[in-house]
């Protein structure tokens, strides 16, 4: 059928990569007109190259995939298990999910993760806020209201992911952060003046000095392509057996289902500020698709002084988690919740109680030594 169409209409555009099949989509990253098969090939090959060139894994690694049930992590789980087979990375893959306890949002998305577990044959581990901290997000919101609760959720999730990874005894955690996310983070760090985070937000592997490093295989992958990936899969699976997968139909179903409902945001977070930057990036992408990669490149090339003071890393006196303060942020927040003072640890006012004071003393000593007097020229 494909050939027939080519013979009939000379105006049919051919894929500019293989020059054989009809081009069926404009690749968001490069605006090349390519066919479906080539799209899958370049999409997966690019991720494979990123994994190889950055030496993200070594054979025999146990790797946990942070799985939320959203499009990024679902596609990541699928692509990673496919590449693991195809290129024999020799990885033991796991799915790791965090249950924040948000009724009507997380319980739905966790159902997808449960389905993925069966479809991909990957063992799944779910850690919940309730079991780790004794508080679910629903309960926290009931206590502090809908403002500021993202502080709790973000701090708790980061630690929950690390604790789940430790329970699974994995060597690495991979997350589905894509190029758009990273570009957005670079911009946000410039906008709020966070030079320390600006210097590390573009590195593909973070936390190498910590117990379990995390990496982002989708660092150079555009969000739009991640959306296209499962979308085109449906057509591919129904028309031709393009992929030698055991049950392509069940994947497509899962993807379709998931895409369907993950257009909804977390019910507690309208997240206006991040949305601002995201909107800007989408506008930029429309004018110049390369802008996203350029922002990441800028982030990597920023000349950040090594003498800029970075917080020292230590461990939390209470739970042993990595922390730059006496107590880790999760313990400070939890302590506030348990004592009925949920505002503790939000904002800067009372944080002094839990160790900011002694840090200031440490730094005070140093900064006096380093202080420069103006040049005295008479």
């Amino acid at each position, binding site marked *: 059928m494909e050939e027939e169409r080519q013979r009939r209409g000379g105006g049919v555009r051919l894929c500019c990569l293989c020059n054989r099949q009809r081009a069926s989509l404009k690749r968001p990253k490069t605006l090349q007109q390519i066919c479906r098969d080539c799209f899958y090939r370049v999409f997966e090959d690019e991720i494979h190259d990123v994994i190889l060139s950055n030496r993200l894994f070594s054979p025999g690694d146990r790797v946990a995939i942070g799985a939320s049930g959203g499009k990024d992590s679902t596609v990541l789980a699928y692509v990673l298990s496919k590449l693991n087979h195809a290129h024999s990375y020799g990885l033991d893959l796991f799915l790791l999910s965090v249950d924040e306890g948000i009724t009507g949002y997380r319980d739905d998305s966790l159902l997808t993760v449960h389905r993925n577990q069966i479809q991909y044959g990957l063992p799944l581990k779910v850690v919940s806020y309730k079991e780790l901290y004794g508080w679910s997000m629903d309960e926290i919101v009931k206590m502090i209201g809908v403002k500021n609760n993202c502080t709790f959720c973000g701090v708790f999730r980061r630690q929950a992911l690390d604790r789940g990874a430790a329970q699974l005894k994995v060597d690495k955690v991979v997350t589905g952060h894509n190029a758009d996310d990273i570009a957005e983070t670079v911009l946000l760090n410039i906008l709020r003046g966070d030079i320390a985070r600006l210097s590390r937000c573009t590195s593909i592997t973070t936390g190498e000095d910590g117990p379990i490093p995390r990496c982002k295989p989708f660092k150079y992958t555009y969000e739009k392509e991640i959306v296209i990936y499962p979308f085109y899969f449906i057509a591919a699976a129904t028309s031709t057996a393009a992929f030698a997968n055991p049950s392509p139909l069940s994947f497509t179903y899962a993807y379709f289902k998931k895409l369907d409902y993950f257009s909804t945001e977390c019910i507690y977070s309208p997240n206006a500020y991040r949305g601002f930057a995201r909107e800007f990036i989408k506008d930029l992408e429309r004018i110049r698709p390369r802008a996203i990669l350029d922002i990441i490149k800028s982030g990597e090339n920023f000349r950040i002084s090594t003498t800029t003071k970075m917080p020292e890393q230590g461990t939390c006196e209470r739970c042993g988690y990595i922390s730059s303060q006496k107590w880790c942020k999760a313990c400070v927040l939890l302590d506030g919740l348990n004592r009925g003072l949920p505002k503790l640890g939000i904002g800067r006012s009372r944080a002094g109680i839990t160790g900011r004071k002694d840090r200031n003393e440490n730094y005070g000593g140093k900064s006096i030594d380093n202080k420069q007097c103006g*040049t005295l020229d008479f």
Partner: protein
Amino acid sequence: MACNGTGCQSTCYKDEEEPSSSSSSSSPCSKPSTDSVKPESTNVCCLKCKLNDAVSGYGGVDDGRFCADCFKSNLFGKFRLAVTSNAMITPTDEVLVAFSGGPSSRVALQFVHDMQERAQKNFDASRDRSLPVFGVGVVFIDESAVLPIPSTEMEEAVEVINSVVSSLAPPMKELHLVPIETVYSSNSSDGKEGIIKLVNSVSDPTGREDMLLNLRMLALQKVASEFGYNRLVLGSCTSRIASHVLSATVKGQGYSLPADIQYVDARWEIPVVLPLRDCFAQEINMLCRLDGLKTLQLSTGPSSSINGLVSSFVALLQEENPSRESTIVRTAGKLIPFHFNRIPEIVDGNVPLATRRRQKRYNLKPNESVSSESFCALCNSPLDKSEIVDWSNVDNSRSTDIFYSACCSSCQFQILPRDSMTMEQFYMDLPQSVIIRAKQANNGNLSLLREQIQDCLLSDGEDET
């Protein structure tokens, strides 16, 4: 640390309540009518002099704190601090102010004039006259060759500029009205054609804007150099620089970004200085309004470029948070500047001691900055190591190829034409000065490369012995 979380709905600085009441009172407020404002008055008293009503509406973190006079002296103070602490202008200097007619360069011109006037008074009053008064010139670049500016508008603009500059005397200031095609050394009609061809061969709208910016800097440098100036003052304000930080990031120029946003940029033949780096656009507009400074805005048509998108984004952010622009500039200020981001020391023994003493440098850290020896042939931005091409194997390639690889990746993408035919034409149309600079840079690279190799060989030899 001042407010505890919950209690902070207090009205620390009553910004929001005031605009209606104080904007109505802004004009009479510049003159103190009576000896003091009554305490029960609804207007906010100036935080500094405690005498007059504060004016508001000028944006930034200080909005609504000062009265008109204190506002003006505060703004001038920022300018003067930038000038003195970075040794921008010393008594023996000849300063060329780039004047576009817009508010920022108008204020820059005004402040430079104020400083010069003051220096003149001091000179006249002093007995030994050891400190000469620095000279000031004004340059306006006429870009009507490449921008759709109506000719009547340009004529009016020239009239306004003439009247502005002649009103700023004494001391006398020379005015240079120069067309953009002056970057070509041959006669101007040829240049006009060349520059139109050159700019039109850039297909990307953002690239075209940036190309024009490069050409404008070339023209400014040429004027400054020809007429013997040794400083070029630009009116770039905080808002402008904040936009530049973001747009440079978006264009992938993260490495060279710190070179552009410092007070001093001496990578050019004539060092460029930005004394308004700490002043917000709104403050500058306010000053123009208060002092009735005449400004003009040439209509250049709509812009669909990344630069335009970024400026509107920054303006939106600034509206939401009045200190956003300065946060952006401060963040980028923490990136390491380059060695050329300072005024070179005066080593000439003929310069009087009094002048040399005036070169104060308060906040210049000892050389932490990394030096960079190679620059983009087109935009003159320092090149990252990954962008520097190995010249040893391109000896026999075409000059266009060499030029292409001497440009930064950003210029390669957004300015240089893709196909070789157009590239050939583009190269032919470039001003001679650009090509000369590129050739010099190549030779520089070559010698730099040799130096690096020599270094390696030496250390290898040392290891073996």
